[in-house]
């Protein structure tokens, strides 16, 4: 078997690269992350003319400098992995700006194929291309495609295979930058050829020299020879004094010059492009008065779709896991205390099932997000929210994951992917657990009626949510001033044209997120569930202790005896100042598995029997704690210890356990300090 042809797909954001990638590879895709960053790594496979082709969808970028994670990843992949072919996906209705990336690929002298995507739109806009001549000027094949309609795929694959067979070949013309720059370029290139043979062989001497003139940090770091550095800095100095600007900017000018020259000869435009329709829509959705309400209504729709509509399949899944648990349980004789049965039913099925029930939420949420992104509204929404979010040091788009956090932190953390800037993304992920999620509502609905008169229930609930929001805002601001310090990026964002999303790309997007989530549930979350099950089940009480106890009392005795119960007792002195006893401690530790476990754990330690009988539990609570302690329980559950699934998702999305641990410990300490203050100050008044 021959080696597959490795193809890298690059292109500007909004060039339709993903839909083209989906069209070619269909469902033969694999999505992961680049190590250490949340930039997505998508790979797909297909065959053409007996050749196996492996496609890598690189992040969308405008250029290949070294200023953002996306640019660096794309550039490193092309330089270091040396794909057999690079496909540059170009929005054919907007050639000039899109070809800028192409000029940088020409400079790198990679075997190149241009996909002129959305060529139907270009035709409708009255653009006529002389593709043969343009192909000569760019020294690469050009294939017209329409990714959203599935046109041009075979021709593109044909172009890829042919280009791969030809391999790397020297360019005849390449790009010329004018006499002054060429002169300095030749000087630096000579120095590189003489002193940095290795780099010259690897990346091409002209390209290395060009990057040195641009003072590209990554390339500079690779240069060992002081002579080459010296030659480069002298050349840069001379160019600066000639052009009164950075050589980097002059080079960008020249690249655009090359493009407009090539376009003038080969593109005829019969109609002037107008933005009237999109201008009108923008005037409404980004309006000072209407922009925010429109955004809030749409967000409410997303929230409703995710959590209200998602509840029906959720109930189905809950039923399914309940049935599965009962079925597995039925394999053992009635009343058996086999540990394997308990592991499977109470550990694995209950633990993983408790997380998988969120799958419908995840699918619906990403369906909604994909629609917002593909139609082009997301960019406008980011803009509308930016002024408010900017004040707490976040990006306009941060609002969306934070809002989703009121439903569940797990999809919310996944949704933080829509943020391009890493610092913004990390800050958002860190504060998401402070948005009070749906699972914590079960705790509040146990506690609030137990301690507060009906008239006070609403305001208390509102207060808890408000505290969460205020803490999230404060923490975000503090994090941006300390750990994630750094200037907020200047706001420059493309407003893509409004487009109709294609069902295929929306569905693929949705499925990929769902699959990612399922994989997580099957690995890390499964592991954590089993660990927590062990902690709550072992060591077992002796049979003598259980003698004469009914079911509820036996479970109480077992939990008390287990590691979890012992830890609960052990931490009692530490949580006493918060108004908690060992029972609350044990239930809080159990809540690490999932917040709603708090309620069932508490009903076990109070031996109140079945979960449905919450009134009995409320009576016990009223007898044992003050309303202040009750409020503190809610406060602590709100702020502290994100659940196991949240920890696992933070680990996945930040790429390191360090951030997950930081979030876990940070929030727990914060919860302790705040609850301590509230309880101690509150006690003086009551």
């Amino acid at each position: 078997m021959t080696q597959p042809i490795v193809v890298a797909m690059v292109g500007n954001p909004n060039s339709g690269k993903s839909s083209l990638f989906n069209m070619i590879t269909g469902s033969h895709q694999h999505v992961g992350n680049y190590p250490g960053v949340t930039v997505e790594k998508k790979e797909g496979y297909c065959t053409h003319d007996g050749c196996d082709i492996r496609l890598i969808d690189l992040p969308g970028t405008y250029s290949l400098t070294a200023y953002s994670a996306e640019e660096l990843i794309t550039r490193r992949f092309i330089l270091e992995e040396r794909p057999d072919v690079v496909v540059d996906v170009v929005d054919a209705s907007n050639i000039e700006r899109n070809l800028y990336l192409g000029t940088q690929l020409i400079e790198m002298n990679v075997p190149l194929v241009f996909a002129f995507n959305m060529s139907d739109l270009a035709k409708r806009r009255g653009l006529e291309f002389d593709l043969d001549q343009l192909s000569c000027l760019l020294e690469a094949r050009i294939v017209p495609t329409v990714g959203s309609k599935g046109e041009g795929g075979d021709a593109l694959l044909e172009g890829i295979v042919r280009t791969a067979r030809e391999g790397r070949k020297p360019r005849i013309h390449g790009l010329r930058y004018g006499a002054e720059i060429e002169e300095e370029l030749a000087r630096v290139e000579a120095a590189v050829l003489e002193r940095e043979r290795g780099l010259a062989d690897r990346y091409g001497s002209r390209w290395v020299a060009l990057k040195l003139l641009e003072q590209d940090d990554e390339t500079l770091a690779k240069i060992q020879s002081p002579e080459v550095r010296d030659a480069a800095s002298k050349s840069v100095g001379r160019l600066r004094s000639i052009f009164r600007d950075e050589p980097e900017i002059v080079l960008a000018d020249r690249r655009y010059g090359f493009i407009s020259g090539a376009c003038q000869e080969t593109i005829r435009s019969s109609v002037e492009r107008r933005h009237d329709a999109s201008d009108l829509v923008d005037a409404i959705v980004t309006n000072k008065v209407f922009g925010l309400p429109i955004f809030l209504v749409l967000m409410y729709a997303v929230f409703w779709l995710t959590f209200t509509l998602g509840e029906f399949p959720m109930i189905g899944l809950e039923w399914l896991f309940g049935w599965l648990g009962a079925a597995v349980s039925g394999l053992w004789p009635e009343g058996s205390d086999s540990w394997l049965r308990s592991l499977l039913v109470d550990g694995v099925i209950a633990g993983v099932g408790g997380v998988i029930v969120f799958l419908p939420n995840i699918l619906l949420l990403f369906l909604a997000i994909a629609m917002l992104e593909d139609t082009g509204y997301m960019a406008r929404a980011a803009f509308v929210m930016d002024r408010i979010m900017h004040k707490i040091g976040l990006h306009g788009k941060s609002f969306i994951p934070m809002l989703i956090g009121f439903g569940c932190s797990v999809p919310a953390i996944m949704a933080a992917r829509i943020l391009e800037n890493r610092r913004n993304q990390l800050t958002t992920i860190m504060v998401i657990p402070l948005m009070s999620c749906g699972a914590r509502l079960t705790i509040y609905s146990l506690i609030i009626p137990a301690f507060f008169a009906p008239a006070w229930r609403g305001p208390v609930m509102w207060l808890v949510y408000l505290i969460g929001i205020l803490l999230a805002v404060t923490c975000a601001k503090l994090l941006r001033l300390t750990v994630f310090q750094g200037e907020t990026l200047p706001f420059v964002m493309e407003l893509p044209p409004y487009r109709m999303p294609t069902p295929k790309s929306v569905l693929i997007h949705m499925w990929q997120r769902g699959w990612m989530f399922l994989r997580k549930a099957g690995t890390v979350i499964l592991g954590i569930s089993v660990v927590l099950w062990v902690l709550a089940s072992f060591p077992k009480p002796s049979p003598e202790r259980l003698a004469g106890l009914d079911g509820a009392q036996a479970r109480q005795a077992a939990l008390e005896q287990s590691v979890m119960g012992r830890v609960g007792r052990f931490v009692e002195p530490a949580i006493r100042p918060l108004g908690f006893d060992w029972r609350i401690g044990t239930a809080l530790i159990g809540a690490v598995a999932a917040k709603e476990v708090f309620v069932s754990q508490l009903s076990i330690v109070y031996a109140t029997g079945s979960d449905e009988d919450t009134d009995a539990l409320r009576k016990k609570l009223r007898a044992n704690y003050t309303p202040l302690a009750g409020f503190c329980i809610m406060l602590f559950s709100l702020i502290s210890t994100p659940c196991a699934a949240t920890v696992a998702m933070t680990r996945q999305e930040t790429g390191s356990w360090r951030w997950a641990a930081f979030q876990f410990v940070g929030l727990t300490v914060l919860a302790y300090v705040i609850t301590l203050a509230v309880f101690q100050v509150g006690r003086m008044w009551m």
Partner: protein
Amino acid sequence: MGKVVAEQNVVRPLSTVADGDTVRLVQVRAGRGLNSRLASMGFVSGAAIRVVSNNHPGPFVVVIKDVKVVLGRGVAQKILIR
């Protein structure tokens, strides 16, 4: 192209341009990162910029090389035009 304003030769920041006017870029006065990012999006000298909306404190939207771009006000002040 829309109408070109009368004050052809006065170099001033993009943030001062009124809605609907088309101007030419002279230079971007920003740090290296922003400079390079803007250049890659087509903000190079001589490029035609049409201002779509310049409402204080609302959006600052321009069209450059057939692409609609939103700029922060701070960014618009760093772009010099004629």
